[in-house]
């Protein structure tokens, strides 16, 4: 074993090093050190747990002498007590003394879990080198984080998806612009043409005022009027064409972006959806992509056009009159500074408005699909008042931002107009004083028109940072999805020829958010063809065991093996296709019955679908539907009973022909008669396949050749029905309660029938 000792999670202070060294003999080295962040009294500060071959040492300022040490051989039990926002390493010594040895936040919780296990195993006489392999693996996993952003990497040394792409944010967006290059270049060419034409009218005005009108030259007037007409036709005609082409390219950009975000959203792991509301995901796909599209068009089109316009106007103005040009430039610094302040003020509002709108959307996505529950509990008023409360929050923020978005630009425009007044005043005096020799009336009028045109691009560039801020905030949220780590190795990994269905859980530990262990030290072997019933009270961890097997969550400790292979090394798509999963509440799509059954195998032959429906006891009720297999289901399967939906979901699993079957309380929500039909279907389906059934009804478990009982994330009983009944443990008690409630249920059903 080539591990560089001692392993540690961060640098250790010199004083702590000395304190530890004082507890050691020369031949006894420290194997690993955990640098925590809490003192025993719960204050932030350095505290250390250092573990050697024969003892562990605690360094904390509140300990007597700053140090405490315990021999592994004196330890009877060591465990981590997880509390709220902090945790403790509690040790029970063989002399009966109990010690709260080390206190820490969740930042080092997984390391302390490992340390507790190490100390306990060494006290039980287990091999230190073998235990050190687990220790080094835990350290390696913890250190597999991106040094830039701290995200957990797929493995040590892997490139961080987020940082890699964030630094190339423009490249990410350019990817969507590239396919539209031709169209955008045409638009740009047209824009430059219209811009050049737009510079003409003020010049024509000067000619009219200075030359044509005073000389009463009607012929020239007609020519100039037609020239003006031509200029406007070109300007607005081409403008309309350009607008149309821009819309086409913009639509394509936003459609591509939305497709990508939605595609990525499909492949995001469950933990993303555990933390992100549906409303916020919808907002990103619907709203933020639109904001980004606007920004992309702005930077590829308007920036060039406005720059061209700005340079053109300044050149013309300089040629016309240097003094007046300098005067008209006077408000520019003010505009730029104001825009900077504006950008700074408005940026938080964009985020805030989005947050509030997301909250409103979340209520919509929550209450509209649950409208039956709302109505049945007469909750309409409450739903409306909750919506109004959130909507009011949104309104307040939006109104507050409206102040800034309107007052600032108006103040700036006012300043600019003051600049124009200044030019009228200075220029007007020049025209009057010199009788038009230094400055003609036409030139003044033409100049003032150019000045007002000049502030268009100035404003544009000044507020570009504002639209950049809005786009940045949208990009951040869109990239949150686009750059989120997808489910690992979706199209990588092995594709074994066949999945036989031997399942093994090896030392599996799991927690959703480090605050509470949901699965603890699970070791379990299921042989091919085994039918295993999983029982336990609600919240015991049954479904989580299944969720880990289905790889909905990959961040567990330990290993899950299928036919001896770590499931993380198997291609995820292939792997999931070999598992049939029937949930307690079957989810249906708003589609035909046929397509709902064929969801997992869209190209299945029609007869295979019918056959699957037959096996699932669903064919008869489908045949009774006026539209048969073409019956359209409402959202989430509205129109079918719970039992019917369940049979469709079983048919879906049958069609997949999986090697492993998982039933998560498949018959929990149906009556006895339907349960029998479903039970029959299940029995037909499970023949020769490894089957895991989460169930609490004895009737469901009767086919299981093995039963495991899960309690507080641990497997506490494992054996056949008879063995567990003889054990008179938890299973026995569950079955006793079950039998009693079953009798009551049956008699009630009979009563109702009579």
């Amino acid at each position: 074993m080539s591990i560089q000792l001692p392993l540690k999670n961060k640098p250790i202070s010199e004083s702590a090093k000395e304190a530890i060294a004082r507890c050691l003999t020369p031949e006894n080295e420290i194997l690993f050190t955990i640098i925590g962040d809490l003192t025993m009294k719960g204050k932030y500060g350095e505290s250390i747990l250092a573990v050697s071959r024969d003892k562990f040492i605690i360094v904390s300022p509140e300990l007597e002498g700053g140090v405490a040490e315990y021999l592994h051989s004196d330890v009877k039990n060591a465990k981590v007590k997880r509390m709220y926002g902090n945790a403790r390493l509690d040790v029970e010594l063989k002399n009966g003394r109990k010690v709260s040895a080390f206190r820490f936040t969740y930042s080092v919780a997984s390391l302390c879990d490992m340390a507790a296990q190490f100390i306990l195993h060494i006290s039980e006489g287990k091999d230190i080198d073998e235990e050190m392999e687990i220790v080094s693996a835990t350290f390696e996993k913890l250190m597999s984080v991106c040094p830039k952003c701290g995200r957990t990497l797929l493995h040590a040394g892997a490139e961080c998806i987020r940082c890699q792409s964030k630094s190339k944010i423009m490249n990410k967006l350019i990817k969507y612009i590239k396919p539209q290059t031709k169209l955008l270049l045409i638009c740009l060419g047209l824009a430059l043409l219209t811009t050049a034409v737009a510079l003409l009218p003020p010049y024509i005005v000067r000619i009219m005022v200075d030359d044509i009108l005073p000389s009463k030259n009607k012929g020239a007037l007609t020519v100039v009027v037609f020239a003006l007409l031509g200029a406007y036709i070109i300007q607005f005609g081409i403008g309309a064409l350009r607008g149309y082409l821009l819309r086409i390219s913009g639509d394509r950009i936003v459609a591509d972006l939305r497709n990508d975000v939605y595609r990525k959203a499909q492949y995001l792991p469950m933990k993303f959806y555990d933390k992100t509301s549906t409303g916020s995901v919808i907002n990103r796909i619907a709203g933020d992509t639109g904001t980004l599209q606007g920004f992309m068009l702005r930077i590829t089109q308007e920036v060039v056009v406005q720059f061209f316009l700005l340079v053109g106007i300044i050149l013309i103005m300089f040629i016309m009159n240097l003094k007046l040009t300098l005067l008209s430039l006077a408000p520019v610094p003010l505009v730029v500074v104001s825009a900077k302040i504006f950008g700074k003020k408005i940026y938080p509002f964009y985020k805030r408005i989005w947050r509030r709108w997301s909250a409103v959307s979340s209520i919509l996505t929550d209450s509209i699909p649950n409208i039956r529950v709302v109505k049945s509990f007469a909750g309409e008023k409450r739903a409306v008042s909750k919506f109004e409360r959130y909507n009011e929050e949104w309104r307040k923020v939006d109104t507050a931002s409206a102040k800034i978005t309107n007052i600032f630009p108006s103040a700036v425009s006012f300043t600019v107009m003051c600049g124009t007044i200044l030019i009228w005043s200075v220029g007007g005096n020049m025209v009057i004083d010199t009788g038009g020799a230094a400055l003609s009336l036409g030139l003044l009028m033409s100049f003032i028109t150019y000045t007002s045109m000049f502030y268009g691009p100035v404003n544009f560039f000044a507020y570009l940072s504002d639209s950049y801020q809005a786009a940045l905030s949208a990009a951040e949220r869109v990239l949150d999805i686009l750059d989120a780590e997808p489910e690992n190795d979706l199209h990588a990994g092995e594709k074994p020829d066949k999945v036989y269905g031997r399942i093994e859980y090896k030392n599996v530990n799991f927690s959703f958010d480090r605050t509470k262990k949901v699965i603890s030290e699970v070791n379990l072997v299921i042989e091919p063809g085994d039918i295993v019933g999983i029982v336990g009270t609600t919240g015991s961890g049954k479904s989580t065991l299944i969720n880990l097997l289905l790889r909905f969550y990959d961040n567990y400790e330990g290993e899950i093996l299928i036919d001896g292979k770590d499931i993380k090394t198997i291609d995820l798509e292939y792997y999931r296709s070999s598992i049939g999963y029937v949930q307690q509440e079957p989810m249906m799509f708003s589609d035909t019955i046929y397509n709902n059954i064929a969801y997992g195998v869209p190209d299945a032959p029609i007869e295979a679908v019918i056959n699957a429906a037959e096996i699932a006891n669903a064919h008869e009720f489908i045949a009774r539907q006026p539209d048969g297999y073409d019956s359209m289901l409402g959202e989430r399967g509205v129109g079918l009973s719970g039992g019917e939906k369940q049979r469709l979901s079983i048919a879906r699993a049958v069609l997949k022909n999986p090697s492993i079957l998982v039933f998560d309380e498949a018959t929990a929500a149906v009556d006895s008669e339907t349960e029998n039909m479903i039970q029959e279907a299940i029995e037909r389906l499970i023949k020769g396949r490894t089957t895991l059934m989460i169930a609490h009804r004895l009737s469901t478990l009767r086919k299981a050749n093995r039963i495991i009982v899960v309690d507080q994330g641990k497997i506490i009983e494992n054996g056949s029905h008879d063995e567990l009944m003889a054990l008179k443990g938890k299973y026995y008690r569950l079955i006793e309660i079950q039998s009693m409630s079953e009798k009551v249920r049956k008699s009630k059903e009979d009563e109702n029938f009579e």
Partner: protein
Amino acid sequence: MSRLYIEGDMARFIKAEANLINVELYDGIKFDMLEPRRLFPISGLNKYITLLDSEGNEKAIIRDLDSLIPESKKVVTDCLNEYYMIPKITKLVDSTDKFGVLKWTVETDHGIKTFDIRNRYSDIKSLFDGRILIRDSDDNRYEIPDTSKLDKKSQYLLYLEL
């Protein structure tokens, strides 16, 4: 079995070990080594404190902590303070944004702490009672009880994210 609610002087609480207590009811019934836990830790209610045995089974509920005799109230409060660590942020010293991850340095009633916030949209929550709840990238929790009591700079830094 009906739920046993404890209030007033109907029980005496004695500190056992760590965050555990022994309970003696006025009728002589005793429970040892119970763990007090808040039923409403986020709402911050000082009421409805459940008392769990080592198996996690509820033995009783303290209806209102403030109604207990002072000694008992102190014992239970100490245990709750040991169990629940939600540092109260008194000052936002620094806030930087790198690659979309916020790094905050804050002063709290537990000392100074620097932590990362991965997702500012889901990890900073503003409640309707005016409190702000924060979760860092390690799942540690923090609370800002009253934003109006923060200094100007802290308010501004917070305001940028809310």
